[in-house]
C-alpha cells in the first residue's frame, strides 16, 4: 500500500503538461473543429512519441503496456489541455485489437501514432470518423474494420468533437473476444480526461476571480464565489483517488464509479466556471468554452451517469 504517484509518474505528467502548454492547444482545437486536422495530427505524433498510446499496447507490439495508471496520468494532462481527437478511442482500439489475431498488423502503428483509431459507441456514433485511419465497429458477431467512408459529421456541443456513423460491415477482424475490457479502458481514459478538464476549469476560474473586480473588490473575495469554488475543488479532489484506484484494479464497477464521479465533478466545475466568468465565459471565442463544452460532452460519452450507477449497483465496489 502506497497509494501515491511515484516520482517517475509525476515527472511524466509534468513533461506532458509542459509539452502541451507549449503546443497552444486552443489554436489546435479551433483548427480541428473547422475540419483542418494538420496541427492536430502533428500534436498527435508528439503525444505518441511521449509514449501515451504505447501505454495501452503490449511490449511485443512496440508498446510499454499495459500500464493503466500511467495512462490515467497521461489522460488527465490531455484533458487539462483539452486535446482534440479520438484519444480514448485509440486506446480502446489498441485493447480491442490486442486480443485478436491482427494485433501485429495494427498495434505498432497505434503505439507510434502513425494510426489514429476510432470505435463506434453503442449509439452508433464514432468520434472523428472522418479523420481516423482505423474505424472499428464492434458488432454482435465480431469486430469489423469499417472500410467505406463514414456518414456526414454531426456536431457536438463540444466543437472539437465531430461525430459520424460508421458504414456497417467491412473487414471482419475477429470474432468472439469480448468488448468489455476495451470499454473499461476507454472509460478509464475518459474519466481521466474529464478530471483534467475539471482541473483546468478550476484553475482558470480561480485566476479569473482574483483578477475580475466588481463593486470595487475582486469577485473572489465574495463568500458565495469562494464556496462554489471550494465545492468544485473538493469534488475534483475526491474524484482523483477514485480514478487511480480504478486504474489499479481495472474492475468495471470501479472504473464506472470513477467515470461518473470525475465527469460529474468536471461538469459541476464547468457550471461554476461559466457562472463565475459571467457572459465572457459564454462566448465561443473565449478559450474557456473549449473546456466547458468538453465537460458536458464527456459526461455522456462512453457511459451515461445512469449506466455507470447501474454497474456499481449490480457489481458492487471493493470494500478494502
Amino acid at each position, binding site marked *: 500500500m502506497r497509494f501515491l504517484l511515484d516520482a517517475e509518474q509525476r515527472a511524466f505528467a509534468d513533461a506532458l503538461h509542459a509539452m502541451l502548454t507549449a503546443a497552444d492547444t486552443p489554436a489546435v482545437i479551433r483548427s480541428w473543429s473547422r475540419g483542418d486536422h494538420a496541427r492536430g495530427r502533428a500534436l498527435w505524433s508528439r503525444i505518441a512519441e511521449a509514449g501515451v498510446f504505447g501505454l495501452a499496447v503490449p511490449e511485443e507490439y512496440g508498446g510499454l503496456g499495459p500500464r493503466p495508471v500511467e495512462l490515467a496520468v497521461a489522460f488527465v494532462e490531455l484533458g487539462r489541455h483539452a486535446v482534440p481527437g479520438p484519444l480514448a478511442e485509440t486506446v480502446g482500439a489498441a485493447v480491442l485489437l490486442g486480443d485478436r489475431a491482427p494485433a501485429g498488423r495494427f498495434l505498432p502503428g497505434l503505439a507510434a501514432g502513425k494510426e489514429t483509431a476510432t470505435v463506434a*459507441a453503442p449509439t452508433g456514433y464514432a468520434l472523428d470518423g472522418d479523420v481516423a485511419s482505423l474505424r472499428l465497429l464492434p458488432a454482435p458477431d465480431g469486430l469489423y474494420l469499417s472500410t467505406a467512408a463514414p456518414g456526414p459529421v454531426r456536431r457536438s*456541443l463540444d466543437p472539437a468533437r465531430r461525430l459520424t456513423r460508421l458504414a456497417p460491415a467491412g473487414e471482419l477482424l475477429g470474432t468472439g473476444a469480448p468488448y468489455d475490457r476495451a470499454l473499461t479502458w476507454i472509460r478509464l481514459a475518459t474519466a481521466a480526461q474529464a478530471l483534467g478538464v475539471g482541473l483546468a476549469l478550476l484553475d482558470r476560474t480561480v485566476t479569473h476571480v482574483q483578477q475580475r473586480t466588481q463593486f470595487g473588490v475582486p469577485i473572489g473575495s465574495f463568500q458565495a464565489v469562494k464556496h462554489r469554488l471550494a465545492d468544485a475543488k473538493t469534488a475534483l479532489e475526491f474524484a482523483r483517488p477514485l480514478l487511480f484506484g480504478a486504474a489499479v484494479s481495472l474492475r468495471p464497477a470501479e472504473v464506472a464509479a470513477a467515470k461518473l464521479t470525475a465527469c460529474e465533478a468536471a461538469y459541476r466545475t464547468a457550471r461554476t466556471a461559466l457562472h463565475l466568468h*459571467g*457572459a465572457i465565459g459564454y*462566448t465561443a471565442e473565449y478559450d474557456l468554452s473549449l473546456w*466547458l463544452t468538453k465537460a458536458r460532452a464527456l459526461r455522456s460519452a462512453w457511459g451515461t451517469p*445512469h449506466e455507470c450507477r447501474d454497474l456499481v449497483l449490480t457489481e458492487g465496489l471493493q470494500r478494502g
Partner: protein
Amino acid sequence: MDLTHSPADEEFRAAARAWLDAHVPRAPLPSLETEEGFAAHRTWEAELAADRWSVVSWPERYGGRDAGLLRWLVFEEEYWAAGAPGRVGQNGIALLAPTLFAYGTEEQRARVLPPMATGEVVWAQAWSEPEAGSDLAALASRAVRTDGGWLISGLKTWSSRAAFADRAFGLFRSDPGTGRPHEGLTYLMFDLRAPGVTVRPVGRLDGRPAFAELFLDEVFVPDEDVIGEPGQGWAIAMSATADERGLTLRSPGRFLASAARLRDLWRAQGSPGHARDRVADALIAARAYQVFAYAAASRVLAGARLGPESSMNKVFWSELDLALHETALDLLGAEGELADGAWSEGYVFALAGPIYAGTNEIQRDIVAERLLGLPKGRR
C-alpha cells in the same frame, strides 16, 4: 382565492389558440441566432402583427389588444403550448416598450412602437460594458452634448440580438462630474447602422452569434431619441416598469410547455425510473411558477408593487429552465451532446439564465437584504 379565468378571458384564450393552430409553422424555424433564422423570425413577427397577436398587452393604437396582465399570461400559455417560434422582438417589447409607455413622449411612442410590433425594426439592448456587468452603475460610455442631440462613444458588450438587429437602447454617461455613479446617466435610443457604429458579432457557446460588441465612436443621437430627462437614465431604467418586468421577463407559459415536452420525451423513452423524480419536479415547478405569477398579477392588479419579489422570480425560473434542459439531455443519453438536437439550443440558452438580467447571486443578496431585512454585506 379564485384561479378561474373570466368567460371573456377564456374567449380570448380560445381565439388565440385558434389563430395559433392555424398559423404556427409546422416545422421549427431555423435558429433565431443565425442570419437566416433571424429573417424567418422577423417574418413570423409580421404574421403575428397582421392579426394583432404580436403585442397583445399594448394599446390598440400601437398594434395591440389592450390585454391586461392576466390575458397576457393566458396568451403566453397558448403561444408556447402551440410550439410557436421564439420572439425576435422580445428585447424591444419587454424592455424598451414599457419604458416608452412610462417615460416616452407621445411622438416617440407613435414613431417607435408600430414598427417594433411588426418586426420591421428589431431592437437590441445595450446595457453592459466590460467593467460594468453586475455592477451596472460603473458604466463608462459617454454622451457628449452637441447641436440638436448627443454624440455617444464607448464600448457596449453582450448586446443580445445586436448581430442582426436594427436599433438599440441603453444608458450613457452624459455628466461625468457628479461623482455619484448612479447620476448623470442618460437613456438613449440609437441606430445600429448609423455612422460611427461598429457591430462585432460574438458567438455564444454553440458558436451562434447571439450577441455582439458595439463600438461607438461619436455616434450622433438626436434629442428626439432621448427618453425622459437627460441625466435621469438610471431612475428611468430602474423605475416602476421594472416591477412588472420581473413578472413578464419570462412567462410561465414557456416553462409549462417545456415541462410538458420533457414529460413526453420521458414517456417516449418508456418512463425510465432514474429520471422520474426530476420529470415530476419539473412539472411541479412549472406549475408553481405559473400560480406564483397569477398571484403576483393579482397583487399588481390590486394596486400592489412587486419590487424585490421579482428577484425570487428570476432565481426560480433560471434554475428551473436549466434543470429542465439538463434532465432532457440526460434522457437523451449519449446523444445528448449533439448540437443540433431539439433540446440543445434550449440548453445553451438556459445556461445563460443564471448569469444575465442580474446574476442569481445579486438576486439572492436582494432577497436577503430587502425581503428578509438582513444586513447589507460588503458588496
